């Protein structure tokens, strides 16, 4: 059990184009997954606020109940199963239908998977907003969705920003699971390099260091953004008239 540190630089210099490509794909997956997952989460978190009212027409009640059941099912399944299994299952399930590449499938799967987590983050963010905010919005005649878009979501997103950003860090690491689809992200590249030079310890150490650098940079950027949004939360000027 020994790490040959002398080999580290060697391996990196020999294989840097492969590492670099892996970094590129990993970062791409993480960013696309987080952004698309955030959008999915916003939509689902918002739809989850639609409650069945006593005075709704029966058909509306049924539709609302069905929609809530579908949303619950989505979150339940995608949070409750490993992304690796989702990836393989969905890739082969839809392959005959839409003939997608594994790269396209990987982008969709990480987004849909992140969306399930984001939906819960947004939902709890919405719940953390004082009921009075909604009542005030209603009292000036805002519809449910105007209330969400102009009043509730801006505050909910600001409050849950740390959890939303955390998903980016999770995705940098978890995108490694998409190697099952043979996409050339960082973990897949590491496997390939180690498979050819047989220097498993050193190659995986390089990979670990790269992941650590990526997550550190991401959390640094997120911290800056968080400080900025908190600061601007007090001062920012959104032009509501435009």
């Amino acid at each position, binding site marked *: 059990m020994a790490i040959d540190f002398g080999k580290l630089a060697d391996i990196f210099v020999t294989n840097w184009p492969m590492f670099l490509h892996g970094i590129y794909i990993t970062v791409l997956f993480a960013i696309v997954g987080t952004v698309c997952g955030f959008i999915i989460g916003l939509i689902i978190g918002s739809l989850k606020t639609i409650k069945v009212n006593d005075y709704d027409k029966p058909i509306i009640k049924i539709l609302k109940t069905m929609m809530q059941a579908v949303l619950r099912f989505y979150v339940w399944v995608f949070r409750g199963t490993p992304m690796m299994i989702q990836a393989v299952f969905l890739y082969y399930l839809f392959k005959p239908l839409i003939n997608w590449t594994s790269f396209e499938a990987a982008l969709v799967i990480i987004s849909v998977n992140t969306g399930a987590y984001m939906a819960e983050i947004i939902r709890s963010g919405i719940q953390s907003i004082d009921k009075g*905010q909604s009542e005030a919005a*209603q009292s000036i*005649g805002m519809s449910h969705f105007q209330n969400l878009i102009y009043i509730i979501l801006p505050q909910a997103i600001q409050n849950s920003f740390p959890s939303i950003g955390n998903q980016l860090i999770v995705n940098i690491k978890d995108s490694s699971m998409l190697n099952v689809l043979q996409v050339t992200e960082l973990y897949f590249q590491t496997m390939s390099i180690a498979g050819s030079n047989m220097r498993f310890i050193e190659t995986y150490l390089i990979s670990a260091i790269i992941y650590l650098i990526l997550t550190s940079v991401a959390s640094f950027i997120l911290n800056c953004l968080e400080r900025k949004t908190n600061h601007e939360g007090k001062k920012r000027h959104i032009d509501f008239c435009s």
Partner: protein
Amino acid sequence: MEELLSVINLQKNFDELEVLKDVSFSVKSREAVTIIGASGSGKSTLLRSINLLERPSGGQILFHGQNIMENSFDVNSYRQKVAMVFQNFNLFNHLNVLQNCLIGQTKVKKIGKDEALDKALYYLEKVGMRQFKDAYPQTLSGGQKQRVAIARALAMEPEIVLFDEPTSALDPEMVQEVLDIMQKLAKEGLTMIVVTHEMQFARDVSDKVIFMDKGIIAEEGSAEDIFAHPKNPRTIQFLSRYRQSFV
């Protein structure tokens, strides 16, 4: 004068609890109506039912003769005409004072930018908060927040404003600044329904006073009737502390 708003046999239950039993009253245009009564008598529920923040269990509410509880009724456009001022202000925390007064105008009423800005500034001036237009709610005192909340309601140019215990959450020294503004508005002929514990204010501004007790209107009359010559024993009892000190 035309009846602007009529509440007819209104009932509201929260599960088994009957909060409003059978409430009927009406408000004319330019009238200031105050609702007084002990905590738990149903005052706030009544007010919240009027703009459908609470869905009544039975009875009718007529606005310009139209039943607002019908399914086909456009609740959102009704609420633009029936503004509300809350006990806890409920200013939009992520918006500054000016934006709080603009958002309803521009996003709900779809009024143009310049006109909305003029109105927002006009009403902020009226409540003495124009110089705070760029401040965020968390930097304001309770009294200032409530004045902004009043400006936000007025900027919608509603036909009636509902005040739900607007001074109950304020420190004592801030109560008067809010009451003064409300009194000014009442004098200018703003139609208002005010749920309040401020008896002197109710006496000074009310065209009509409603005393509620256990989910019903126990007594209703002019300020003079209720405060100087109450008839119902419950009213007499409720007002006894106030009347000892003032009458």
